[in-house]
């Protein structure tokens, strides 16, 4: 917060540190997109800048929404998102192909993106309603599982493994913080270990191949392992200081696929090196820490759980993407928020940040009033 006489109060009360941080990350991302296009604002950087500024405005606007309003809208938004997911599935069935969005004519809505913050808010709201004494009862567990499981399955069959994993992890984080018994979390880990071979057989061909290649990327360096191999080459060849702005050969000569979307981190690391990579990771770490602090100092159970869950969403975005591009996780198609080109990830992250800012403003407002 900036306290100064010349700045009007509503502006001064904005969390400027966070905004600068987010704008810094996004600005850096725009530089990377500019370079990925061969030193041109077309076709990505300019569009991305517009999207970012737009969603930043929306996020700041959202910071004035009260906690009560958020709570009131939580269940309806969740229900609406669920309906849209079903709708997408039905359309996909009719159109005989994978379908992830609803084309409303003026905008393409990807309901699975909305589901990330929606599931966090819904579960936070649900556990707020559960009395403290009931938290270890079966009653506190199965509804949450249903609330989480139905959208997760709908997203999985789209098929969008990356988003499905994100949604599940966000939901599980809220459930974990809500105080559900340990075995709820330990159990599935054991179950996954047992069921993994079975699930593996049920995956789509391309998903299965991605996992095979993840386990041994060099087995197919020209085929399915190409993405990971080239991404590691880009990152590794960047060294400590990188090859320099606009000097990345992997991205500029098209050896690195998806260098402006999912693998944008590799494009960045090739040109900015270890230094750029570490700075970016620290910046994201600070954003997440800010969100976790909002959660830690929250007064209500809803805002505690919601703030932690929303921060976790950003965390999972960043960490899954980075693990993916550095060969620590299979390629599941999770973009790097604020840096990767594409509106939906920016939208999701800015929605999360907007909600976090609203919850943070609430704390201050409440504290000044009491």
């Amino acid at each position, binding site marked *: 917060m900036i306290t100064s006489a010349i700045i009007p109060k509503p502006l001064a009360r904005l969390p400027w540190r966070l905004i600068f941080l987010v704008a810094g990350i996004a600005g850096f991302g725009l530089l990377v997109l500019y370079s990925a296009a061969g030193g041109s604002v077309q076709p990505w950087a300019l569009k991305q800048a517009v999207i970012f500024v737009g969603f930043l405005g929306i996020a700041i606007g959202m910071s004035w929404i009260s906690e009560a309003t958020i709570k009131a809208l939580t269940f309806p938004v969740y229900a609406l998102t669920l309906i849209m997911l079903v709708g997408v599935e039905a359309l996909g069935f009719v159109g005989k192909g994978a379908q992830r969005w609803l084309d409303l004519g003026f905008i393409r809505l990807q309901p699975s993106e909305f589901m990330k913050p929606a599931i966090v808010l819904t579960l936070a709201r649900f556990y707020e309603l559960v009395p*403290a004494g009931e938290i*270890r009862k079966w009653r506190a567990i199965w509804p949450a599982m249903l609330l989480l499981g139905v959208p997760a399955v709908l997203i999985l069959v789209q098929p969008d493994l990356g988003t499905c994993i994100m949604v599940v992890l966000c939901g599980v984080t809220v459930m974990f913080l809500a105080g559900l018994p340990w075995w709820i979390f330990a159990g599935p880990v054991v179950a996954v270990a047992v069921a993994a071979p079975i699930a593996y057989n049920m995956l789509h061909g391309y998903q299965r191949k991605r996992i095979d290649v993840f386990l041994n990327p060099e087995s197919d360096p020209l085929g399915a392992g190409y993405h990971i191999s080239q991404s590691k080459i880009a990152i590794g060849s*960047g060294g400590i200081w990188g090859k320099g702005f606009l000097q990345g050969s992997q991205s500029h000569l098209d050896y690195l696929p998806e260098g402006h979307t999912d693998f944008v981190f590799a494009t960045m690391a090739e040109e900015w090196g270890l230094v750029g990579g570490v700075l970016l990771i620290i910046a994201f*770490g600070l954003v997440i820490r800010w969100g976790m602090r909002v*959660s830690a100092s929250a007064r209500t159970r809803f805002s505690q759980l919601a703030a932690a869950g929303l921060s976790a969403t950003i965390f999972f975005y960043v*960490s899954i993407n980075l693990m993916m591009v550095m060969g*620590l996780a299979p390629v599941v198609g999770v973009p790097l928020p604020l840096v990767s080109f594409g509106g939906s990830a920016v939208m999701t992250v800015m929605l999360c940040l907007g909600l976090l800012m609203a919850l943070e403003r609430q704390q201050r407002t409440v504290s000044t009033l009491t």
Partner: protein
Amino acid sequence: MNRPTRLTVAHQSITFSRRMLLLGGAQAAVGAVLVGRLGWLAIAQNQKYQLLSESNRVQLIPVPPRRGWIIDRAGKPIAINRASFRVDIVPQQMEEGRDIVPEVARLLALTLDDVDRIRRDLHASRGFQPVSVAENVTYEQYAGITVRLPDLPGVQATRGYSRYYPDGPAVAHLLGYVGAANAKEYEAEKKNPLLIIPGFKIGKQGLEKSLEPYLRGVPGGQRIEVTARGKLVKELDPKPDRSGQTVQLTIDQGLQQYAARRMGDQSGALVAMDVESGDILAFVSMPAFDPNSFSEGIGQTEWKMLSANDHIPLLNKVSQGLYPSGSTIKPAMALGFLKQGLDPNRKFYCSGGIQIGNRYFRDDAAHGAVDMRSAIEHSCNAYFWAMGLKTNPQQTTEMVNYLGYGQQFDLPVPSQRFGTMPNPKWLEEKYHRAWQGYDTANTSIGQGYVLINPLQLAVMPARIASGKLLQPRLLMAGKRKPVPALDVDSEHLKIIREGMAAVVNGGGTAVASKLPLDGIQMAGKTGTAQVFRLVARGHQGSWALRDHALFIAFAPADKPRYAIGCIIEHGGFGASAAAPVVRDSMTYLFDKEKALAALAPLEQQWGGSLAERNARELAAFKAAAGTTTA
């Protein structure tokens, strides 16, 4: 879980704080892992990935080196590179959706086969690598393509180099030819990218093949930056190529060409040697193919013509043809007799044949009383049969082998066949039977098991002439080893040389082949090798049934400088077919004008020079086969 206490809001708050701590810790741990991984990739494995990134970025297009020349002993070129024009297509520069192949095919008058091949290559190629359309196109075609280049995106007309042999067929078997590497050769060189450059040729036969390491040179490289899709981004600093070495041969280009021409349409081989050094001056096998057309990729028709020819132009007769030596063995036999103490002046009365065991061996004529010199002079078989029976066949045949017959020489000629010089021990090992009188008789006149190659036919007179254990050489650069003297009495050698001189200059079998030079006499020995045992000797109606004619010689007879061995397949008597060829070739070494003057009327009689006759033959064959070069 089993605690009876009720969970309160306070409990919940504690749980939340604890789990928040845990979650924060886990997030920090993941962050640390990510930074660690980033550091591992960017620092520890930086070199590995930098290398991979470079090998992605930079492609090396090898620039083929120019092949080294082959020159003769005087420095005259016998294999050079001639500027040639070629047309390629760079697939990446082709216009999308426009087929230029028919247009190019029309301009270059290509056949349907060529068009098919080009389409296949285009389909299989990587963007920036050119696909060969045609090699050695004429200047008119090159110019025709060049003016239309703006309309033909992707087409490249370039000047390159192709191998050229000025002497054509005369050097075919000596040098071999060059050609594009085949799949096997490509594999054998561990997929050397140089071998698959359009237009790059490697030695396929003869010296071109065996001298390949010297002649090839070191390829340069055009380093280019390319995208993942093979699109050229920019050219980086090139690496210059290094031309192949020039290799100097001991061959005398003039003699090589003369001997080839002098042989006319006959099938045979001639080898000439310098008796001081062992340098091979001529290495001729005729008839021969034109290595120039082989190097350009020989047409089907021409190949068929060469394969069908009964004079086997595709066989290198010098290193791979094996023949009975006939009477050319006699000087060496005589030396063997002398070594065993036979008196050269001992008279033998030749009555036209002798009885050996229960078989009567008939000579060509009754020579009357002969000694060693006149037995060589008149090629008296009966003398050699009789003396052979009086001496030790093992020692005699060893002497013949010592002088060259049946020996293999260390020459850079791929696949030499070196024949057989039989002896009693060899016979025992190979056929498990004892040496008989008739074996001595057959061997004494170079028949039976005796098989020699034309190279040995030159080494033999060279060793007798010089009295040294000469080794034939083809490369000027080879180390000159001191040549040891032959382990024979020089008096004995003198007797043999006198006998051989009389063959040509006395009253011998080759008096018709005296050198037409003042003060220079040639010494020699004729040989006639039976091809079919049962038919009568001499001229036959059928070419393939006639005897082989052989002649070995050295000159000057008193102070030898050159030795020549020659075989004319199915030439009849050695004196009539082989000796004149040797005489004229020997004359060439001393007096070129005179030799060429002797050749002119002969070529007129045969219907033109070698090149003219070859061209006419090919045209006739093509007309008969009904093909045209489209």
